[in-house]
């Protein structure tokens, strides 16, 4: 795995380890679950962990059976280890169970990670690029929150566009500590009424076009719209894709995403962050949410 200006690749500890839950708080309609990782491995923005609960996994419905993938949304490096924040949108048995462990019950999550390929700095993606446009939809804001912080630390200017369907599906805004966020919501409950890609369209029509790289995470249809817009505008983009992951470390071949050149990649190894130019479509993998 290549090093990037946004962080070095550090191999995750081998195996599955229990990480103690040290915090849990609602973040809009999502929940930020924080765990403490004494291994001290610092993940890159865009990397993910495979998480499961120590007990009651499977839950009452018989599922979940496999662990679930979660992007790391915040990192706090301390002397004894790192505190990792995961933003959880409870959409099914796995995410519900993870949210429950966070939500009050003391306990641990079983974790494998950090895994996968994270975001690269703008100049690594496109020669001459100096700024970043972050565009997130729904729970896809999670990896962008960490990316944003890392960019600020590196002094890379970035603009943030976030879109939500409605208030019941919005959260994570508190992870972005600056007021420079532009919002779009389908129901108009906050910000622009409409698609977040409308906002991107305007930006790409403006000055930033030549010098920025677009970073995006969100629902497949949004990512595909972003990919096409960027392709048409000649702007490089990095997309954090989703695909149902069985293992997260290349063992199951379940996370296949079609490549533009034909064949498939394993998203857990060659993603979740991919260059827009490598894939045929951003909505061709199996939808996870």
């Amino acid at each position: 795995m290549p090093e990037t200006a946004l962080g070095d690749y550090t191999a995750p500890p081998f195996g599955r380890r229990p990480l103690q839950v040290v915090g849990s708080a609602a973040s809009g309609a999502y929940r930020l679950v924080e765990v403490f990782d004494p291994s001290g491995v610092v993940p890159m923005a865009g990397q993910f962990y495979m998480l499961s609960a120590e007990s009651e996994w499977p839950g009452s419905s018989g599922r979940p059976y496999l662990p679930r993938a979660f992007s790391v949304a915040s990192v706090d490096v301390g002397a004894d280890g790192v505190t990792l924040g995961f933003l959880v949108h409870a959409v099914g048995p796995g995410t519900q169970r993870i949210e429950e462990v966070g939500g009050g019950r003391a306990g641990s999550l079983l974790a494998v990670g950090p895994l996968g390929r994270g975001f690269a700095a703008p100049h690594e993606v496109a020669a001459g690029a100096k700024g970043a446009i972050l565009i997130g939809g729904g729970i896809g804001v999670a990896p962008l929150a960490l990316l944003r912080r890392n960019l600020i630390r590196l002094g890379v200017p970035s603009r943030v566009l976030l879109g939500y369907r409605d208030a019941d599906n919005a959260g994570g805004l508190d992870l972005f500590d600056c007021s420079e966020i532009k919002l779009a919501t389908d129901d108009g409950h906050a910000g622009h009424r409409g698609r977040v890609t409308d906002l991107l369209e305007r930006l790409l029509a403006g000055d930033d076009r030549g010098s920025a790289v677009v970073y995006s995470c969100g629902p497949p249809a949004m990512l595909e719209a972003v990919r096409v817009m960027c392709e048409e505008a000649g702007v490089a983009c990095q997309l954090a894709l989703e695909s149902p992951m069985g293992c997260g470390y290349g063992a199951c071949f379940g996370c296949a995403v079609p490549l533009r050149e034909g064949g498939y990649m394993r998203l857990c190894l060659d993603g979740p962050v991919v260059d827009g130019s490598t894939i045929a479509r951003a909505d061709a993998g199996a939808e996870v949410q």
Partner: protein
Amino acid sequence: MIEARDLRVDLCGIELAHPVLNGSGTFDAIAAHDVFGDILLERFPFSAFVSKTITPEPRPGNPPPRLWEETDGVINSIGLPNKGLGGFLEKDLPRLAALPVPLIVSVMATSAEEFAGLVQAISERSEVAAIELNVSCPNVKSGLVVGESPDECASLVSALRVLTEKPLIVKLTPGADPVPVAMAAETSGADAFSLVNTLKASPLSPAGDGHWLGAVSGGLSGPTIKDLALAQVSAVADAVGLPVIGMGGVSSGADARSFLEAGASAVAVGTENFRDPEAGSRIARELEDLG
């Protein structure tokens, strides 16, 4: 690797430190090495490594979705993605040869001639300790399910037997009574058996809009098939005089012990690897603790 003296197993002349292998296609040692680094080699979870099944030509695998989650199991329609024989020998074999454990290469083809080509090429490589014949994969639309027919299986094994001195492990399919197939293969010169492979299953989309898997059908694995696998392993172990590698839902030392008690000489861990990359060593340790 676990140094548990009393867990040692001799499998067709291959010395194993403990009886826990991986199931073919459920652990990619090369990818895991890339991800976790050299600690994988220091703490390698299995006593032998079974490669993903390779075919004569490269295969991209099936369209997604490829996984369906069951209560206590998984249905997969991965579709044997692999680099083909040439790509395997050139790119994968050197890296697999660097693993600290014996290497078993799984092969599959749609005709005896193609099988022969695979076995001959792999037989020449001293890095390979044994060859597993996948005659049962339910994911690939081959015209011929050799593993469901005693005659077909016997003639295939006879044809391959003369091509190699390496142990030939026949991986039996649970889609048919494995006992007559195993008995026929034993007579034809097989050295060992492994079972069970996955069971054909077709999950429907919960949205009510047709099949879930991109390839319509897939193979069921995990704890949900354990008692079924135990029945088949014990029937085959009783019927043949050759070693049996038992698998199907092994996820704890107690499960492994069940298979050994049913007559298996070794066990393989498949789906549980997805939940826990170190499942193999954990299970071997638990087995040791059970005494």
